[in-house]
């Protein structure tokens, strides 16, 4: 992972977060440094700030794409204008995050990008005593069939497919309901609560966990 970011605090927490989530990260402070690093070494993806000294993020991105480099790039910016967003995506950025962003969101998007194209198609997923049959849209737990609505199943499938990943409410709303704006509603909480009532509450082992202030994660936690 290459992180090009001139703000030291941001660079530090992103790097630390990445490393604690199993990535190794190199940090460049200036745009030209980042470009040189990206050209000389191999990275899985680049996290690129737009406002950088010497060479700004757009120029770095343009230079990279011009030289035929297809490495995934996530742009970070503090300026959320449509023009900037469009410019970034037109230049070939894979995703775009506006500061202040949540780290879990960055992580989720990073993983989505890295998964792209290489995702194994899982048909039946078994975790603990939960079994998800994706093609037949059926969920069973402990041999018992779970009566889930279509959206509840989609929600569960998302959490299970991306198990171990903390998913923010924004990401969940986007993936399950195709609602891609930061809503003030607590719809996602309610949906999670109702899902839990059906698939977690009746069982001793809880699989969906709330990470307060961040989001939700599906994982088997060892007590």
């Amino acid at each position, binding site marked *: 992972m290459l992180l090009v970011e001139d703000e030291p605090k941001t660079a530090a927490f992103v790097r630390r977060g990445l490393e604690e989530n199993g990535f190794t990260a190199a940090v460049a402070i200036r745009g030209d440094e980042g470009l040189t690093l990206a050209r000389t070494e191999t990275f899985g993806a680049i996290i690129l700030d737009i406002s950088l000294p010497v060479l700004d993020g757009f120029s770095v991105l343009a230079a990279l794409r011009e030289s035929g480099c297809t490495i995934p790039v996530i742009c970070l910016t503090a300026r959320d204008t*449509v*023009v900037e967003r469009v410019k970034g995506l037109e230049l070939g950025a894979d995703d775009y995050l506006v500061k*202040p962003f949540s780290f879990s969101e960055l992580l989720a998007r990073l993983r989505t990008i890295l998964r792209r194209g290489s995702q194994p198609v899982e048909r039946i997923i078994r975790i603990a005593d939960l079994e998800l049959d994706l093609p037949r849209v059926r969920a069973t737990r402990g041999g018992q069939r779970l009566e889930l609505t279509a959206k509840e199943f989609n929600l569960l499938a998302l959490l299970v497919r991306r198990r171990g990943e903390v998913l923010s409410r924004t990401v969940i709303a986007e993936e399950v309901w195709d*609602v891609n704006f930061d809503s*003030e509603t607590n719809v996602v909480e*309610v949906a999670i609560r109702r899902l839990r009532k059906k698939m977690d509450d009746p069982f001793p082992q809880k699989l969906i966990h709330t990470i*307060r*202030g961040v989001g939700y994660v599906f994982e088997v936690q060892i007590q």
Partner: protein
Amino acid sequence: MYSKSKSNESIVVKNPSRAWSMTARLIGLQILAVALLIGGALFFLLRTITSHLDADDRDIVNQQATLLQKWFEDPNTKPSAVMDQIRAPTADQFFFVRILDQSGKILFENGNPAAPPVSAFPESGHPATYWHVDAGPHFLMTKIEARVNPDNRRIQLQLAFDVTDDFTLIRQIRQSITVVFSMALLVSAVLAYFITRAALRPIQSLTEAAARVQASKLVSRFEGTHWPVELAPLVREFDAMLARLAGSFRRLGRFSTDLSHELRTPINNLRGEAEVALNRPRTPEEYRVVLESSLEEYGRITRLIDTLLFIAKADQPETGLKRQLLDATKECAAVADFFEAAAADRGVVIAVRGQAGIYCDSMLFRRALSNLVDNALCHTPRGGHIDLTVRSGQPGMTEIEVSDSGTGISPDDLPHIFERFYQAANEERDTSGPNPGFGLGLAIVKSIMDLHAGEVSATSAPGRGTTIRLLFPGRQASPTS
């Protein structure tokens, strides 16, 4: 859509040759017009006089020639008698007469030393021609043949008429015309200067009025004065621009005021929690709780900034509206779907009715509708219902109605519900939940409708429910973005 970036650039004068002074251009054009008019008139006058004189002179020469010819051919008159007659001092001194025989021998001349030579005369039968040497007299010459009795001998009569006076007259007229023309140009230049200055005076006033405009006081500086018809549209546009600017300034000003005001609470919480937490050593679990609480506050601040910025920017139509023709029913169903769980949780039924197409930005439409449904859900008791009704209104318009069977809004509050941060008096602001509202939901709806050049209205019967109506213009009626 991306015209925003263009509008940020300064306006470039593309053709520098056009950047002439208006005064200079107007004066130049006026002088040119005067020159063409007076010049043309004088030229025509001169042409008329010249051709008149020319015609008169030719008549005289031809008549005289014919007269001479008749004399010579008259059988009762001897040629010598005719010559004596011409030579007599009473004869008209303006005429020069020369008589030649067939071999070219000069038989007679009436003795004018300045007369044109034999060879200068035109052939007999040809029209008369002019002749002169340098500053000498001008002659109009003609040649005619005559048969002289008694032997029917052929002679040639050369006749020259002194027209020097006419030429002098024309020269004098030409000189006066030049003087008159120059004077006219000079006078017209002076007049043009004053006329132009007077005509352009409103521009001067416009400049002065514009100079009085200040960012802090963006009120109209142009009203009151009676502007000329030509400038009235410009002044109107100026005023409209000022109004838009004032609006933008006001919104931005309110944005920063609102923002700093609303930031106080979460930042106060963050600060207080951190200070108290650091007061004495605590267990990791306690620190964790503090951090988690902070995360919630951060999320709140982020959402607040996003929302306020959205509203502040929404006034600019080029914000990036991605409008397309959509199935309104499908869009409503998608939103209803989103709230399915929350509604079921509260025992409220959401129903979508009707059929219509809609021309809008899908994301913004869903956002507006979500806010409305969310609001309705908050105010509808268990067992109630929320109806999303879609119908085609007047030509091209699409009407979306969100009605609930909830608590309703009091008539005092109703006119204000679309204002930002407005909270109904009887409504305690819910800041305890994980998703406290800012009182911005309906303000966002209003902004989104403004972006679409649509309308939003609300009716409510306290205790029976509220209906919010969104009116979207059709594709044709929409301003092109």
